[in-house]
C-alpha cells in the first residue's frame, strides 16, 4: 500500500514537473461583432444592422475596440474579418497595428476583401510583434453603399498568440 501511494505521488510529480518545464505556445481568440465599431470619419456615421457596420453615403473608416488580457504580451496576432464587399472600386479592409507605449514604432498588417461579391467574404492577416510593442488598435475601411447594397463588416476574430508557461 505504501509503495502504491508513493508511486502515485511520483506520477503526479512527474506530470506537474513536465508541465512546468515546457515553454508552450497558446492563443486566446476574441470575438467582435461589426456593430462594436464606430466611425472615425468626420461627419460620417456608420449604418448598423444584424450584418454589422456599413457605410451609407460615402466610404468611411471605423475603429473597433479591443480588450486583450494584459498580463502578457502576444508575439503574434491573427486577424480574420468577414463581411460583404458590394463595391467594384473599393474594398472592406481592416488594419491591425501595434505601437510602443508612446505611440511610436508602429507596425501593422492589413486584411482586405476582394471587391464586388454578393456572398460573404473572409480575409485574414498576421501581425508579428516584437517584444513590448503590444498596444494594439484596429481600424477598418468600409466602401460606400452601392446599387448592390451595403458593404458590411460582419465579424472579427482576433487571435493573440503567447509564449508562456501554462497556467
Amino acid at each position, binding site marked *: 500500500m505504501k509503495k*502504491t501511494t508513493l508511486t502515485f505521488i511520483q506520477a503526479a510529480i512527474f*506530470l506537474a514537473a513536465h508541465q512546468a518545464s515546457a515553454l508552450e505556445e497558446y492563443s486566446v481568440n476574441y470575438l467582435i461583432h461589426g456593430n462594436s465599431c*464606430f466611425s472615425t470619419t468626420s461627419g460620417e456615421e456608420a449604418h448598423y444592422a444584424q450584418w*454589422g457596420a456599413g457605410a451609407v453615403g460615402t466610404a468611411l473608416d471605423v475603429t473597433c475596440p479591443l480588450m486583450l488580457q494584459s498580463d502578457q504580451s502576444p508575439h503574434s496576432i491573427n486577424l480574420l474579418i468577414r463581411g460583404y464587399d458590394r463595391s467594384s472600386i473599393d474594398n472592406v479592409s481592416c488594419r491591425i497595428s501595434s505601437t510602443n507605449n508612446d505611440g511610436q514604432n508602429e507596425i501593422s498588417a492589413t486584411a482586405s476583401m476582394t471587391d464586388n461579391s454578393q456572398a460573404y467574404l473572409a480575409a485574414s492577416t498576421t501581425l508579428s510583434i516584437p517584444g513590448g510593442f503590444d498596444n494594439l488598435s484596429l481600424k477598418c475601411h468600409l466602401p460606400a453603399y452601392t446599387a448592390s447594397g451595403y458593404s458590411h463588416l460582419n465579424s472579427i476574430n482576433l487571435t493573440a498568440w503567447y509564449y508562456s508557461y501554462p497556467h
Partner: protein
Amino acid sequence: MKKTILTFTLSMVCLAAYPAAVQGYYYNTYLIHGNGCFSITSGEEAHYSLWGAGAIGTALDVTCPIVLPDQNYSNAEISVNGYNRSSTDGISCRISGTNYDGGNEASGTATLSVNQQPLQVASASVSLSNNRWLSLKCHLPAYTALGYSHLHSIQLKMKVGY
C-alpha cells in the same frame, strides 16, 4: 517492478480521465458602463455623466461595444440598470447574436418601465449556439422635465458550456 508499472499506468489514466469527467457549464460576467455606448442615430449624440449615457433633445439609439473571448457560449443574459424619466418611452436594450456572416440572428430585449424616478433593472436573455458574435443596442428616451433617462450600466452574463 510489474506492480509499480501497473500502478503508475493506473495513476496516469486516473489523472487524465479526471478532467474529462468534469463537465457542465459555468458563467463569466462582464460589466459595461453606459458611457461605453455611442450613438448610432444620425446627427444625435449622447449625453454622458457618472450616471451613464442619456439622450438630450430627442430619443436616440446607441450601441455598446462587446469584445468577448471565443468560448463555447450557450446563453447570454443582460441586466440593464438605468433611470427611465419618460412617461411615454422606455429605456430598452436588445442583445443579439449572429454567426460569423451576420446570419442566424437571435435576440432578447430588456425594457425598463416608464416614468420612474428610482434606479430600475430589467433583464433579457438569448440562446446561443454558433451565433456568438454579440451586439448590444439600446434605446434612450428624450430628456424630460424629470431629467435624463440614463442608461447606467449593463451586466452581461455569459453561460459557457451546456
